[in-house]
């Protein structure tokens, strides 16, 4: 390898309760497309945020072209020749392409000159884009082009792209790859973040694989199989299952042919999802974030209603029922986003019990709120789940992530649901996991059916009896966890398991 453009040595960054990066070292050469590969939460975003000056490392050093590089702000990073396209765009819908580009510039030229330059760059790199169009009318792919051109106008030496293809159609992906190859030809280094193995094999020269904040491998993706990369990404060793599957009872929740349009611009449509969960069983659903987990939870909670017959609870079709009616029957859910979705940040814990507890805990009678009962329920959750808080009057926002998560899960578990569906029960709250996982297992052993949606495969292997993976809105076949190998899991997460394993 020639002299590296950017060298990272021993970068570490910790947040309260979570180590985002630990001793990460890597080097990127000019003209190299370098993949940063890892599951969600592996620390990819934190790493690039450090490179882009958004986050300051706790320890370690960075060198750019051999000189020490310590960007204090994204502006300093841009001045050093580093540009970044984020997964979520920062564009104003009501303004034109040229106006949006001008907004991001240090000292923008006259709009007419800028439009000419945008047109030149867009032609040179094969990214068709009309500078006069209003951003609100553009597709997601075209919006991404605005961001890319905004970066290219700075003539960057290192170009960082965070999961760029998640919003693109296959045709747009091809156009993007052509642009990136052209940039590589000009000597620009590209740091490409993704978890899509096929893309990385098609585009990248080198890959660094992160897992739990550490570098676990580096390879040439063109020479190593996708299996091998998936194995490194997922981790080759799983903890022994915490429990042995016990007797299971009748089917409590059954999905059949569940299809649903995506939630928002960055959502994923659910396609023909089907599974059964029985009393006493924990079903783990894995998959990389953004493959339909939020949609699946919304379809089960009742926030989104689906076609008749697609969600059946204890033999009754509940597809068209809203959240309250489903809870009253005994289907409780806990979404991933703690603040703002599972709980209202500004409201007290007592008030937050009413978000889901009103029906099953009789907190509302003839329309009147029983504040005494609500407070008693809040106290019961606080005691049972060891929630560290000054008391039930504290607003949800004042709790740490782990304590709020214990509250949110506790609120559902203590309602003794017949079926509990949780999305990311221990996400980013390692310390709280010790309280949450046993509670889920106890609930199942008490005869409830539990569905755990998680990106933490270790967690799923530890607590679930059967496992399936979501990939681009489709659910793989459900398989018993016992005897499930890493390679099979990797393939299930890639959406290709049934064909490849038919003979294995």
């Amino acid at each position, binding site marked *: 390898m020639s002299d590296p453009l950017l060298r990272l040595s021993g970068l570490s960054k910790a947040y309260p309760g979570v180590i985002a990066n630990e001793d990460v070292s890597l080097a990127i050469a000019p003209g190299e497309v370098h993949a940063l590969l890892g599951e969600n939460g592996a620390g990819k975003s934190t790493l690039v945020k450090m490179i882009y000056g958004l986050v300051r490392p706790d320890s370690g050093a960075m060198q750019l072209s051999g000189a020490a590089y310590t960007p204090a702000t994204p502006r300093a990073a841009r001045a050093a020749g580093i540009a970044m396209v984020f997964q979520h765009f920062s564009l104003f819908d009501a303004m034109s392409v040229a106006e949006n580009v001008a907004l991001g510039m240090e000292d923008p030229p006259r709009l007419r000159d800028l439009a000419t330059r945008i047109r030149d760059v867009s032609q040179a790199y094969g990214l068709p884009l009309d500078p006069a169009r209003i951003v609100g009318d553009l597709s997601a792919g075209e919006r991404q082009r605005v961001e890319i051109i905004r970066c290219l106008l700075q003539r960057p030496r290192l170009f960082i792209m965070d999961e760029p293809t998640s919003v693109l159609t296959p045709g747009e992906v091809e156009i993007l790859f052509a642009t990136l190859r052209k940039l590589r030809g000009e000597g620009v280094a590209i740091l490409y973040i993704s978890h899509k193995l096929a893309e990385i094999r098609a585009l990248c020269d080198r890959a660094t694989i992160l897992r739990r904040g550490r570098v676990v491998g580096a390879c040439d993706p063109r020479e190593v199989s996708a299996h091998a990369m998936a194995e490194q990404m997922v981790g080759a060793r799983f903890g022994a299952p915490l429990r042995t599957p016990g007797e299971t009872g009748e089917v409590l929740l059954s999905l059949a042919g569940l299809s649903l349009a995506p939630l928002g611009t960055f959502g994923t449509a659910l396609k023909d999802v089907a599974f059964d969960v029985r009393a006493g069983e924990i079903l783990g659903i894995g998959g990389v974030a953004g493959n339909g987990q939020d949609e699946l939870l919304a379809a089960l*909670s009742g926030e989104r209603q689906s076609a008749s017959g697609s969600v059946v609870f204890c033999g009754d079709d509940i597809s068209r029922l*809203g959240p*309250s009616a489903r809870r009253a029957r005994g289907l409780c859910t806990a979404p991933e986003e703690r603040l703002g979705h*599972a709980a*209202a940040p500004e409201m007290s814990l007592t008030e937050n019990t009413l978000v889901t507890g009103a029906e099953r805990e009789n907190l509302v009678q003839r329309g009147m709120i029983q504040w005494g009962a609500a407070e008693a329920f809040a106290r019961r959750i606080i005691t049972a789940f060891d929630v560290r808080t000054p008391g039930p009057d*504290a607003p949800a926002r004042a709790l740490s992530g782990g304590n709020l998560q214990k509250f949110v899960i506790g609120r559902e578990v203590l309602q003794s649901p017949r079926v509990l569906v949780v999305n990311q029960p221990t996400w980013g709250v390692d310390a709280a996991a010790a309280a949450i996982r046993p509670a889920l297992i106890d609930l199942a052993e008490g005869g409830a059916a539990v569905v755990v949606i998680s990106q933490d495969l270790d967690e799923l292997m530890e607590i679930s009896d059967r496992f399936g993976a979501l990939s681009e809105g489709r659910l793989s076949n459900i398989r018993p966890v016992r005897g499930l190998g890493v390679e099979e899991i990797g393939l299930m997460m890639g959406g290709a398991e049934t064909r490849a394993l038919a003979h294995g």
Partner: protein
Amino acid sequence: MLRLERRATPSKLWAWAAPVLAVVFTMLAGGALFAAFGTDPVLAIRTIFWDPLFGEFAFFYRPQLLLKAAPLVLIALGLAMGFRAGVWNIGAEGQYIVGAICGAAVALALYPAESWLLFPAMVAAGALGGWAWGMIPALLRVRFGTNEILVSLMLVYVAEKLVAAMALGLLRDPEGRGFPGSRNLQSYPSAHNAEIIAGSGVHWGVVAALIAVIGGYVLLSHHVRGFHIRLSGAAPKAARFAGVIPARVVIFCLGLSGALAGMAGLFEVAGPAGQITIEFGVGYGFTAIIVAFLGRLHPFGILAAGLLMALTYVGGEAAQAGLQLPAAAIQVFQGMLLFFLLAVDVFTHFRVRRIRVREA
């Protein structure tokens, strides 16, 4: 260097100190304004804030206070429900006018009826008229995603044209020798919203405002629908997760605030105003927005804020008459109240921290 830092929890002290401080700042800035007009600022502030309550002619001003405060409180209560839910009804003035037209129309259509049933029917018609006017922005938002701020505001101007057309046409007094304006309801006993105790200023609108304050408190603090309203405003996603249907909240809030504003309009036209005139709307619907925020969107706070705002009206008129202050100066004064409230409110959610500037 000073820096604002978000508080972990909003300060309860500041939440209630802010309105008081805003009043103090308004007095100071208003005093400076009056001084610039060449009026003695102490005298002006005393004329506005003290004399109507405790001065020589307080017996005349005190009933006036209740008459002005009643519509403000009634309207502001409805608005506060919506503001809590993130439903921004800015067009209460229009709902107030349409309520007055509908209520008065019932009385005028049945002229000269003599029945105790007439007045309740007028109140119902007023509420219904305001409700219907509020349903226009509600349904447009729910059905087409229009912005209720713009639609409700624009409907105020429609309502103003409508009331002018009514005063000149359909509702014009047939015995009025061609002058614009309806029959005077004050001389129509069954329809007159007279004082319940003569000279006290207490008419049915004051009673309704007090009932609405208590009802609003129960709804917001003890009823599940009020909780859903607050949840919708505080965390819309959590509200949907709880099973709240956002469209129903929009319809409920705009309907309720429309009905209360419509009732306020009816009590006004049947009482202090007496008749439908071209210039019937005098801005209660807009001032009520200030009242709602000054009262922290809390029913009891709104009651206090409504009385305070009524004081600036009554005292302002006295200052205009006695000190020759321009009417616009009084309006600036009321605007300042909201301005200072919003400014001081920052400290409810933020604290000021002194930080040392690091060398970059």
